[in-house]
């Protein structure tokens, strides 16, 4: 019973940002020991298989675009006018200098597909009514995490925080959600911040400026030809 309910809630959390398709404008702020960088990006998605993101600002990288189509990632480089398909060796590399890996983009999937969820806590925490799920990867799921702990508000199921653990069950990174506001007609967290556990002074923060859902984009939009033409 609790498992079924857990799955039901997670499905709603998964669907929150995505809808059938989406169009979003967001900024990404990256802080590391060596650099701080700020970018403004525009992204489109359709289902969970197709994502297209391009850089609007800074000018130097404007037009650089990433296309995720099923399990492949292509990068278009306007400076050289070339499209490159990333090899498996590059998957654990950083995506656009952030704390996300290219693999995060490919593996971005519905939690309910890859994990077996259980409700591990329900009740008051920090003056909020919350539900905490513990997600254990399914035996055949190709995920890099040992477990993921997801905490959502009991009312409306808005995510608050997610803890990612590596295969040795040590905490690897923390993703926090904040600044809930109306986006695409829904109340959603507009700020998402990732902090790697081994470098607590570094972070990548995504701030959603605009989100449109169910924009009725065709599959042709997510093609290599389109990647170049933008």
């Amino acid at each position, binding site marked *: 019973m609790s498992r079924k309910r857990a799955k039901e809630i997670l499905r709603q959390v998964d669907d929150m940002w995505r809808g059938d398709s989406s169009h979003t404008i967001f900024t990404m702020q*990256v802080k*590391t*020991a*060596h*650099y701080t*960088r700020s970018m403004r990006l525009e992204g489109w998605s359709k289902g969970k298989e197709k994502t297209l993101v391009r850089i609007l600002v*800074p000018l*130097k*990288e404007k037009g*650089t675009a990433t296309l995720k189509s099923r399990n492949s990632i292509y*990068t278009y*480089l306007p*400076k*050289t006018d*070339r499209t*490159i*398909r*990333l*090899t498996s*060796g*590059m998957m654990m*590399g*950083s995506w*656009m*200098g952030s704390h996300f890996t290219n693999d995060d983009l490919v593996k971005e999937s519905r939690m309910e597909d890859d994990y077996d969820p259980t409700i591990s806590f329900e009740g008051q925490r920090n003056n909020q009514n919350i539900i905490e799920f513990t997600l254990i990867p399914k035996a055949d799921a190709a995920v890099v995490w040992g477990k993921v702990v997801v905490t959502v508000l009991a009312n409306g199921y808005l995510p608050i925080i997610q803890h990612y653990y590596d295969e040795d069950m040590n905490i690897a990174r923390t993703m926090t959600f904040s600044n809930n506001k109306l986006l695409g007609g829904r109340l959603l967290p507009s700020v998402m911040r990732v902090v790697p556990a081994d470098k607590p002074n570094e972070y990548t923060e995504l701030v959603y400026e605009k989100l449109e859902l169910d924009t009725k984009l065709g599959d042709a939009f997510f093609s290599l030809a389109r990647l170049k033409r933008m």
Partner: protein
Amino acid sequence: MKILSMASRNVVRNWRRTLVTTLAMGFAGFIMIFFAALTEGLLQTSERNAVSMNLGDVQIHAKGYRDDPDLYKRIDNAVDLVGKLQQAGFHATQRVYGFGLAAAGSTSAGVQLRGVNLTNEVTVTQIHQHVMQGDWLADTDPKGVVIGRKLARTLGVTPGNEVVIIGQATDGSMANDLYTVRGILKSISDDVDRAGFFMVEHAFRELMVLPQGAHEIAVMRHDHSRDLDSATAQVAALARGYETMNWRQLRPVIARILDLADAQTIIMILITYVAVAMIVLNAMLMSVFERIRELGIMKALGVTPWQLTLLVYAETMIQIVTASIIAFISGWSVAHYYQENGIDLSAIASSTSFGGVAMDPIWHAHVTTESVVIPIVFLFLIGAAAVIYPAIKAAIIQPVKAIHYHL
């Protein structure tokens, strides 16, 4: 008693046996000279490839760079340090390294980007002379790059083709640019062959947004007879605060293989010669036993045991000297031929590597005095040892028993 003339007469008495024994020894000697020259050739090439292609005698890195190479672990005052090393009488060059993805057409491969200071690099290594196809880097052609041979095959490029590089620059931005393959290297080392992507230093700095500093300084002694350890200590004193290591510390496996090579040759010689010793022992025992009555009579006529021992030894030595001449002439000329021409291994192995150091598929022998002298000296020693028993046998013959001896 004229031992030598008697011995030479005895040797030709059973000339077939003498011929077989001598040829066996000569052949073994020939093989060992050839083997020693080939080993020497392999060692010289691998030492040369390791040190003068890439490593240099001594290298300086920022602490921790070798364990976890990242763009930010740099030698900050690299230019000053190179200047100081040059003043102190060393050849030195700074290098900058980074990682990226190289793509040509629809193929791509991870590469190690290597920014090379052209003026200084030629004083330290000879890599610029090891271009297989095309040309080495040139300051006038900042977009021209030189790549490893396996990498060229993976990407399917030849000189003149375009390659795109993407990577992450020091400011987090996406480094990317288009380059033209200018040259493809011969085999240098496993990592250079597979992932080496050489570019002009200032082109690298522009791509990776790295205005200052270097990841590695390679140092070479002017005078190669100078002790490596004292040179390392002198470099370390100049490069305080950084990690200084010589090539033996950087590549301990190769250093050890080179150290053990002489011992290895001698072990091979001993194994081969034990077989030869059996043949000599057998032949000389036979020749003593079939002459037992003759030797008995000689003894009865007053020949001393010592003289009989000398006789057997003289017979053996005549054969060893002949065998040595055969071994020397054939071994030296064959080894010398392969020193000039090399053995082409490309048919059986497309690329060979040796402790991480790549080898040319053409294996050249290298004839040194040791490679000729040691096999011959050992031939004498082993022959002399093998004939101890037959010689004693001849020496202790009792005339009366010997005369009644029946074969």
